[in-house]
């Protein structure tokens, strides 16, 4: 199913504005400022593209008293997001886009089944107006980025281009505290190192993975990184750390004069 776009999607995409042709309608969720800035750097929005999947996340239990990663869940969370992203990218490719800006990746727990999670990736596909080459992401696929229109403009102006959204996921079971140890803490101010260690390790693993993915993509760096910490309707001691950001690569050519000496302003808007 993941190899082919549904007929309805193909029909929708066929009615969108295609690269190089100005007829047709584009859809986007860009704001006015974003729209103007995306055009300013030579790109045109093509259409809103999305990919979604409802994923059955397998079952895995951690030992009651042990800190450990739940690899089955880590993989599920990663693969489901990757699947949603791939479907979105496929739509973008079908309308000959160079890339996707403003991608949002959402995870929703479904009320009626706690093992089912819905993943959705949505963003605006863009294409270079004059068909200039060199903006595609990995393997000639459209680039993906969670950058806003403003960020996209600034990034290109400062001599970088977005390559791919990179992510790292780690679902971790945090050990329960033994009764004896809990009693030992009564009346004392102490660090619970067992918990600290688990959270630290889980975050470290998520970031490590994201960094490794960026290395594999041949990026110079990752911008706008956010580390989320969430429990998706799981048992209380199970936490997912999820790191995500946009991998970037320098483009040949000089930095634009506009950014070489930017005017620094103090906003009085508060």
């Amino acid at each position, binding site marked *: 199913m993941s190899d082919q776009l549904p007929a309805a999607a193909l029909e929708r995409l066929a009615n969108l504005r295609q690269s190089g042709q100005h007829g047709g309608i584009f859809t986007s969720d860009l704001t006015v400022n974003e729209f103007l800035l995306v055009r300013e750097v030579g790109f045109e929005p093509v259409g809103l593209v999305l990919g979604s999947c409802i994923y059955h996340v397998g079952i895995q239990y*951690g030992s009651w008293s042990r800190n450990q990663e739940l690899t089955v869940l880590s993989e599920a969370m990663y693969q489901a997001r990757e699947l949603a992203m791939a479907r979105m990218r496929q739509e973008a490719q079908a309308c000959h886009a160079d890339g996707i800006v403003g991608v949002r990746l959402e995870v929703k727990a479904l009320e009626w089944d706690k093992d089912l999670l819905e993943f959705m990736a949505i963003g605006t596909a863009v294409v270079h107006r004059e068909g200039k080459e060199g903006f595609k992401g990995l393997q000639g696929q459209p680039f993906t980025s969670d950058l806003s229109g403003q960020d996209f403009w600034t990034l290109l102006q400062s001599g970088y281009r977005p390559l791919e959204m990179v992510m790292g996921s780690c679902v971790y079971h945090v050990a329960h505290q033994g009764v004896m140890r809990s009693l030992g803490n009564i009346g004392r101010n102490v660090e619970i190192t067992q918990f600290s260690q688990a959270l*630290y390790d889980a975050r470290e693993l998520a970031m490590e993975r994201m960094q490794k993915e960026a290395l594999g993509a041949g990026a110079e760096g990752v911008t*706008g990184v956010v580390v989320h910490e969430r429990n998706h309707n799981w048992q209380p001691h199970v936490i997912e750390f999820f790191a995500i950001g946009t991998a970037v690569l320098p483009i040949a050519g000089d930095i634009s004069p506009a950014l070489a000496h930017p005017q620094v*302003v103090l906003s009085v808007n508060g």
Partner: protein
Amino acid sequence: MDRFFKNLKDQLAGLAPQQPSPEEQLRDQQWAEALSRGALPQFVHQRLADTAAGKVPWISTLRPAELALARSQGIHPLGLVSGTCWFHFGYSWTHGHREGWDLTLSRLAQEARSLGANAVVDVTLKTSRNLGQVDSMDFMAVGTAVRVDGLAPAEEVPIASVPALEFVRLLDLGVLPVGLAVGASYEWLTDWSGRAAGQMTWWNQEAGQLSHFARSVQLRAIEGMRQDAARQGNGVLGSTQFSELLCFEGGEDNPNRYLARHIAVGTAILDGSRTARPSPVGSLGVRPVLDLEDTSPLQRDALQQEPL
């Protein structure tokens, strides 16, 4: 069919707790050993060192606009740094908050040193009680370690909750952000007279005792933040406050008890610092500009569901 059985097998395997692999066990030991002596494990330092040396891509919380500053203002992102500490409050919530943040920030500073940074910007602080604990919580800090050209290396890496752009702006005006200032205070009030929340009257009036009680707790927290700032510099910017007043109903024979607590956190600065960069700006020139910041109702976030 094969796939069905494979899935079933995987499912059943998931039911039994998985045994940690030797690597996981080793990693576990290294964490425990390092944290017990107030350090971080070797592999964390290694990853940071590799990042600093450019062997792996840098990662940063900075947005593209802030990255552009790398060229124009000489502020280079080195890597994302973080610190965490789960702290249990036994005898003192106030001290617990202090120590919790101190430990968290000291770990963040260790990571920053490992990257060879001379400042950490864009630090966000978060607490969580994800594990359903009542008398303990997690303190977490995440920020981006940077190297600022022309900023003298200090023994203690300045940690600032302000974004990179504002950090540079302050430096250019001779103000050095030096660290985070934290103040916390809490107190119990037992309402023996039953009148703390005001007498039963028909007119508007101040709930005198309660109002005075809450205020004193708040002021003490702010004073704590001031003292913390005084250790590091001579001012506080962008302070945020967290305040709570809880009532525990006593019932028939027992009086009500009130709990007030307050936390104040801000960025401590050293005004007129000699370590700041020589100012290329001098004074603020105020000029009207058109701002591209989005405040449009069309903004995506306005409709966005809960993020990740």
